[in-house]
């Protein structure tokens, strides 16, 4: 039930990005361009005709479940997999014939892939040695990097003498020390425990801003994607189904799939009874009420079936009937989960549909609602979203 906390995060992390959004600027030149990129393994299409622009200094997250093609896409950017079709341009250069060891791209592996027979220092210096960098400069760069990831005291240790979090930082340092044009991170926080993951998330963001390197992160963890990214590309079955800022993805998912994948959502099926420019009315037997949404749905035939998405935190629970005609229904509380800062309620509607709603616990020692309470559920016309796909 972690998803439900996400209501607050996207807004907070998105604030600095609002000043610079190159993807909304028609004159901005993309740094990485994927053009009709496909990758097939035999009959299986891992990456299916992806066209995507990523801009300089972005922290772009590829988000999706396992087997959605996100890791294959990352490996194609690194040069470990050749494209079946389409091409990758990095800073205007076609990467097709450039082998991994000549690409200005570095990758942080999910397993970290630290060289077990080398010290921390040796691991970080490895990439610079391959460039033939003179010793004094190499030493300086390595010690700067060790300082940056706070591993100065561990330079002489071998990877197996480090904790998981320290290994993760060595892997990051090793990938960053060559100052790549593009840094690829494969589930960078996947192997860390929750507390460490939260701290590391912020460290990663600070580092990215400091070094001004373009990051492409692959993750299946929607919370990680939400906190880290400037933009998220949600992937499913080899395609990118939606690209947008965390806020856009959360508040304006383009499809049921995205809405379900990011956070939790209540979906009500219903028939459109009225579709105007500024509002739409949907009759939903599942919800047990008329749904009124203050945005029109273009190109939809009245009477057709649509889904209405309402996030749990946008639903108000009350004992008395609220003063509104639409978007009000009743139900019985079946489950209560106390999470500390908030409580999650699962409410059964007369139609049998379960609805999830979260309420912040604003006061101490008060439990407003409990099992078997009959309550009213309501939300504002601007809180719900019509999904046609």
């Amino acid at each position, binding site marked *: 039930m972690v998803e439900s906390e996400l209501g607050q995060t996207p807004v907070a992390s998105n604030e600095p990005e609002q000043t610079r959004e190159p993807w909304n600027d028609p004159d901005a030149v993309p740094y990485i361009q994927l053009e009709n990129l496909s990758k097939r393994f035999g009959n299986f299409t891992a990456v299916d005709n992806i066209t995507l622009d990523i801009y300089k200094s972005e922290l772009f997250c590829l988000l999706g479940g396992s087997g959605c093609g996100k890791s294959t896409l990352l490996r194609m950017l690194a040069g470990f997999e050749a494209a079946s079709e389409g091409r990758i341009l990095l800073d205007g250069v076609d990467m097709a014939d450039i082998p991994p060891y000549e690409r200005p791209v570095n990758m942080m*592996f999910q397993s970290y892939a630290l060289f077990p027979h080398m010290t921390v220092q040796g691991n970080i210096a490895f990439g610079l040695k391959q460039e033939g960098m003179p010793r004094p400069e190499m030493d300086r760069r390595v010690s700067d990097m060790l300082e940056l990831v706070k591993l100065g005291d561990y330079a002489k240790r071998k990877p197996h003498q480090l904790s998981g979090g320290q290994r993760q930082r060595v892997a990051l340092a090793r990938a960053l020390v060559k100052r790549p044009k593009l840094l690829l991170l494969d589930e960078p926080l996947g192997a860390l425990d929750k507390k460490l993951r939260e701290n590391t998330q912020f460290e990663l963001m600070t580092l990215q801003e400091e070094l001004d390197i373009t990051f492409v992160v692959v993750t299946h963890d929607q919370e990680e994607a939400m906190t880290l990214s400037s933009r998220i590309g949600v992937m499913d079955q080899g395609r990118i189904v939606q690209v947008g800022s965390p806020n856009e993805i959360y508040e304006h998912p383009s499809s049921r799939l995205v809405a379900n994948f990011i956070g939790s959502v209540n979906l009500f099926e219903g028939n459109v009874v009225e579709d105007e420019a500024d509002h739409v009315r949907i009759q939903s037997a599942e919800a047990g009420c008329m749904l009124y949404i203050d945005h029109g749905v273009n190109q939809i035939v009245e009477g057709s079936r649509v889904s209405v998405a309402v996030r749990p935190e946008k639903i108000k629970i009350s004992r008395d009937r609220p003063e509104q005609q639409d978007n009000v229904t009743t139900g019985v509380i079946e489950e209560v989960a106390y999470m500390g800062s908030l409580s999650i309620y699962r409410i059964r509607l007369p139609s049998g549909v379960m609805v999830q709603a979260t309420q912040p616990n604003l006061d101490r020692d008060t439990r407003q609602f409990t099992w078997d309470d009959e309550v009213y559920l309501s939300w504002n016309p601007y809180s719900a979203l019509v999904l046609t796909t």
Partner: protein
Amino acid sequence: MRMGYTPLGQGLVRLFEPVMPTALGNSVARLLRAAGVTGRNAVIAVPLLWLLLFFLIPFVIVLKISFAEYATAIPPYTDLIQWGDDALMSIKLNFGNYLYLVEDDLYVAAYLNSARIALVSTVMCLLIGYPMAYAIARSSPANRNILLMLVILPFWTSFLLRVYAWMGILKNNGIINNLLMGMGIIDEPIVMMQTDFAVYLGIIYSYLPFMILPLYANLEKLDVNLLEAAADLGCKPFKAFLLITLPLSLPGIIAGSMLVFIPAVGEFVIPSLLGGPDTLMIGRVLWDEFFNNRDWPVASAVAIAMLVFLVIPIMLFQHYQNRQGQS
């Protein structure tokens, strides 16, 4: 134990009923424990007894004989322990056999030659076996089993038969010479039998699987991500092999080399069957000393000296393994 419905089932239940909780069982266990016999000791005792009986005791006998003197008797050596007239026991150790080994050039030359042949064979096995092990480790899982099978397949045939087969291939009117002469490439046979070449060939052929298998076991575990990481950091494939694969496969290289070098030094069958009269190897010298000269004490001294000679690389190996274990 829910089978007590039939007579057979009841019998089985009774059979499997724990014995220990009974009074008799308890007292037996207490007695055994008092005598220092626990389950763990009993398990270790079996291999310990085996090694004692078939390794340590024969070794002590050989050691004993090596300090004796040759005698025309059965067995053909003097007893170390002698009883004087005054019923005093005296032990007479004869170091002459060992001195003889150092004084006579034959033995030193045989040891050095054995070491050289074993070393060259080990290096050759490594050079041939490493690429094979690497290829097997990198092949698809289905092919991997077939390839491993092919490596192990020769063991189905007796080692001795395989060496004899090489004689048939290498001799002057053997397969190779007949083929080459039949094709008109050579006029007279190339002498291959009874040369050092044949000995090397035989040893490398026979011991190659012992190099491949430990190397394969090691290389198969190598994380492919490490090589990708090296490539990602700007390292070309061959350099990545030298910097990553090779150092990480060192334990496999050492294990394989030990498995080839140690038996190759003492090898007797291959030099006797494939080698010529001047292929001097310590195993043959040992055989000659024992069966032709019937000088058991010198033969024993040769064997003990060889053991000491081989213990050094084994101890080096142990040392290396311990260091690996610690880190």
